[in-house]
């Protein structure tokens, strides 16, 4: 019995996540009731994940162009020109829900998916990053999730053989039931050898490559219903398991056949596997596609067309081959031990036709499958602006030294060494700056050119004021790239939010996207790829709005890049940018005063740009000896980090009279950096700053083995270091 001619009931439609009006749209489009396979195809193509139906209209507002942008959003990954005929290919993507269900495999396959997006375009991956958000440390599931996710990210990347060089880890109770696992991959290609998804030419062979298809990740709601199969156990939605070994072989095989000129178009099978990859290749090329499922390599017996079309088995690709190169390509895949099967061809009809066992299981208009997906202008409300908190009205709790020692050991501010030591961050021999700095730096081949990369967002700011928070996320990313001496080039954004059907969540989304757009425009920092993950909520409790920003910057000569470690005693410590003592939404307010309140610090993008350009010029001409951007925890946290990295202390001047000490040391005003310069150059730098209309203030000198503040006990660097390093390992061992 073929399962295809099941009666499509409203319940079945609902189980496929399609609304009644969306189903009506399908009926209007094809003029008849869909088959079961067709219904599955529509549900896969029209779900939020693939169709961007709630977000599309807002994403159009993002700036995506610049002279160095080769490919903006719309392909597997973004592509930017980095000179000398070389391109950087990168994207970030979420694997949130799978990672909550099965942390190791969820995170691992997240990394696998994003790597595939990058090498599908002809790029060899040179680095990975990740942005992880976990629930409160005391939540009973958190430790298990951290352990599994970190092992999974490492497990995949280490085995695949790409250095994982950066990322971020945060903890907040709002992620208790919905953790976020955002993975970013960065690759290198020749500008003349970028591969795209659009098919061309009629009658071209469509080839299936990689691992076999199983029943992995077939959601289709509780499709177990006996309506189309008695063997309900076999229908159970299953977890995808990653196979980094096969992916490494797939990478080498793909790059080899690309090099040999066999490929017309290529598309990885990610979400909605065969369905979305095949329709995308056809639709983008204005062609039809016919698939013959009897040819699809399957791992399990008796797979139906429905299952094959919806399977999310990993490590697979679809390719349109030059027919004359078929034998050569096949030999290469066989050499690597991978499956290679011609499963279809391009047609002039613009229909998507799926055959199985001699029957037509689906026959749909290919363009409309994507283009006619519903698009919503969901109602949204903009949250009321929170009042700015007057620093003078925030009572200091304990001494500055006490606060620093506590803050440096909090889950969000402590050292994340426990995490990144589980990632091979040096493979490739090109990691110039390892994890732990402002941005990682990876040399491009033999140099001297290098790429800087980072991921950033401050969710508590985004919640308090989505527009400012969106701006801040981009600004902080830009600042981190600048702080190592890079020229920021472009970003990928991974927008994680709650349920868009709730106007207040949609309001957060819209606000953040507008903030991101604004910052990208002013900073000349376009969006070239990204991903949207909605519905991150449980029982009406949404995550903090978390638009992770992954940025790439270019360094012409990596030997001229900067690090945050203090280098020598007796150097002048300067702050670039204005310190006003903004405590609203600060770490000090949250961790020391137990208040998550107030407006977040405003971001003046012009000032960001001017201050950043000034700092970069000091790095490039060799004046700045250490550089660190200011963010979470403010001035004193940043100074402590510079001191710990260099094992050198500092003697610091007293705060100005008009700012309360705790606001001065822990306020989170934006657009700021700390730099050190040789004492003899300090005057000249201050003069240069005045000339450039950039505010630079001298705040102390490096030296000694402690941070020394007037009227405070000395905070030894060794003690700070111990506290910063201790929390995470102790927590993971069940001791904190």
């Amino acid at each position, binding site marked *: 019995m073929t399962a295809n001619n099941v009666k499509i009931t409203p319940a079945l439609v609902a189980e496929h996540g399609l609304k009644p009006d969306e189903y009506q749209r399908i009926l209007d489009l094809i003029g008849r009731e869909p088959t079961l396979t067709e219904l599955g195809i529509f549900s896969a193509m029209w779900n939020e994940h693939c169709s961007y139906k709630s977000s599309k209209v807002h994403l159009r507002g993002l700036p995506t162009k610049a002279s160095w942008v080769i490919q903006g959003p719309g392909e597997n990954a973004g592509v930017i020109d980095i000179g000398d005929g070389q391109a950087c290919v990168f994207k970030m993507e979420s694997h949130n829900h799978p990672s909550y269900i099965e942390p190791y495999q969820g995170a691992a396959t997240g990394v696998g998916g994003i790597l595939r997006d990058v090498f599908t375009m002809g790029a060899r991956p040179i680095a990975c990053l990740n942005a992880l958000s976990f629930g409160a440390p005391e939540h009973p599931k958190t430790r298990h999730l951290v352990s599994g996710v970190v092992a999974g990210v490492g497990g995949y990347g280490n085995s695949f053989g790409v250095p994982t060089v950066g990322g971020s880890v945060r903890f907040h109770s709002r992620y208790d039931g919905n953790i976020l696992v955002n993975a970013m991959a960065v690759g290198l290609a020749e500008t003349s050898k970028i591969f795209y998804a659009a098919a061309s030419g009629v009658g071209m062979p469509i080839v299936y490559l990689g691992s076999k298809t199983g029943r992995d990740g077939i959601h289709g709601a509780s499709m177990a219903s006996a309506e189309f199969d008695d063997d309900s156990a076999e229908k159970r939605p299953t977890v995808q398991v990653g196979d980094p070994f096969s992916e490494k072989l797939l990478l080498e095989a793909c790059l080899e056949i690309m090099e040999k000129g066999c490929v017309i178009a290529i598309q990885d099978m990610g979400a909605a596997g065969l369905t979305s990859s095949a329709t995308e290749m056809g639709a983008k090329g204005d062609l039809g596609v016919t698939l013959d499922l009897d040819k699809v390599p399957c791992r399990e017996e008796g797979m139906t067309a429905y299952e094959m079309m919806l399977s999310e088995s990993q490590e697979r690709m679809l390719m349109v081959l030059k027919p004359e190169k078929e034998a050569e390509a096949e030999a290469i895949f066989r050499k690597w031990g991978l499956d290679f099967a011609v499963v279809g061809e391009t047609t002039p009809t613009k229909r998507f036709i799926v055959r199985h066992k001699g029957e037509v299981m689906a026959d749909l208009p290919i363009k409309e499958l994507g283009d006619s997906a519903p698009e919503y202008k969901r109602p949204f409300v903009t949250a009321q602006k929170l009042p700015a908190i007057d620093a003078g009205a925030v009572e200091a709790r304990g001494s500055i030294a006490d606060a620093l020692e506590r803050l440096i050991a909090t889950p969000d501010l402590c050292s994340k060494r426990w995490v990144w030591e589980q990632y*091979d961050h040096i493979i490739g021999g090109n990691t110039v700056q390892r994890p732990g700095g402002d941005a990682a730096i990876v040399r491009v081949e033999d140099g001297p050119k290098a790429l800087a990369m980072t991921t950033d967002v401050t969710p508590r700011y985004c919640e308090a004021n989505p527009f400012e928070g969106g701006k801040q996320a981009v600004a902080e990313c830009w600042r981190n790239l600048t702080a190592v001496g890079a020229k920021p080039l472009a970003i990928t954004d991974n927008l994680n939010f709650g349920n868009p059907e709730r106007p207040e969540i949609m309001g957060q989304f819209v606000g953040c996207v507008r903030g991101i757009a604004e910052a990208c425009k002013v900073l000349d920092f376009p969006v070239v790829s990204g991903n949207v993950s909605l519905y991150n909520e449980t029982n009406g409790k949404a995550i903090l709005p978390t638009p992770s920003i992954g940025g790439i910057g270019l360094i012409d000569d990596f030997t001229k890049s900067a690090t945050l470690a203090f280098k020598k005693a007796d150097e002048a410590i300067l702050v670039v940018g204005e310190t006003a003592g903004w405590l609203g939404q600060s770490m000090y307010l949250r961790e020391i005063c137990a208040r998550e309140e107030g407006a977040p610090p405003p971001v003046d993008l012009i000032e960001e740009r001017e201050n950043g350009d000034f700092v970069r010029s000091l790095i490039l001409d060799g004046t700045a000896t250490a550089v660190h951007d200011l963010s979470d925890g403010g001035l004193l946290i940043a100074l402590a980090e510079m001191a710990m990295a260099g094992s050198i202390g500092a003697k610091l001047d007293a705060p100005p009279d008009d700012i309360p000490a705790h606001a001065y040391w822990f306020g989170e005003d934006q657009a700021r950096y700390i730099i050190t310069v040789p004492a003899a150059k300090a005057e000249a730098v201050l003069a240069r700053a005045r000339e450039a209309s950039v505010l630079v203030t001298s705040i102390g000198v490096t030296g000694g083995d402690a941070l020394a503040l007037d009227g405070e006990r000395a905070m030894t660097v060794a003690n700070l270091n111990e506290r910063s390093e201790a929390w995470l390992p102790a927590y993971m061992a069940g001791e904190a």
Partner: protein
Amino acid sequence: MKAAILVFPGINRERDMARTLKLVSGSTPNMVWHTDHELPAGTDLVVVPGGFSYGDYLRCGAIAARSPIMDAVRAFAAKGGLVLGVCNGFQILCESGLLPGALMRNAQLKFICRDVHLKVERSDTPFTRGYNAGQVIRVPVAHGEGNYIADGETIAKLEGDGRVIFRYASADGMIEPNSNHNGAINAIAGIVNEQGNVLGMMPHPENHVEEAIGRTDGRGLFAGLTEALGRAA
């Protein structure tokens, strides 16, 4: 030097190794595919690089150790040819019987990537002539299963014959548990076979050969080999 780097499916540090050999010795190594039955004529050094051959499935190095090319490597070693195995390469050499013992999961059960200090126990081997005996070098490790074990008799023989070449140590050369990140017996990081021509080690000297990228402590090994092979020729 005429080096051959073995390439198994899933190996991933072969490029790092090739670049380092080229950088230090000046000559480009041959990349040799696992299904080959012979080494290129004139090969004077076989390098089994790091990575995850066959995904490290079953046991690290187990499947690669049974590849056709390994018969050629065994024959080459039996005739006194120099063989260097790093990380997964060390695991492969143990699995193939060219070196004794086995590499188990790290004591903490986690993959660890960090710089470690190694005490170079001997400088009178072709692999370590670029160092002084007792010298401490700093090189990275990146592995989940580097915890060296062997039965008591084997360990006694290794120690008695002076075949432990590298040990995990503190920065000042002390052998103490805190510096033994993976829990290896006697802090063993690298050993040679009885004839002294096959070396296996877990750390990655090939990743510390350029000042600009970190440090150059790993260079001595390749410089020493270059010199040894140069003289022999």
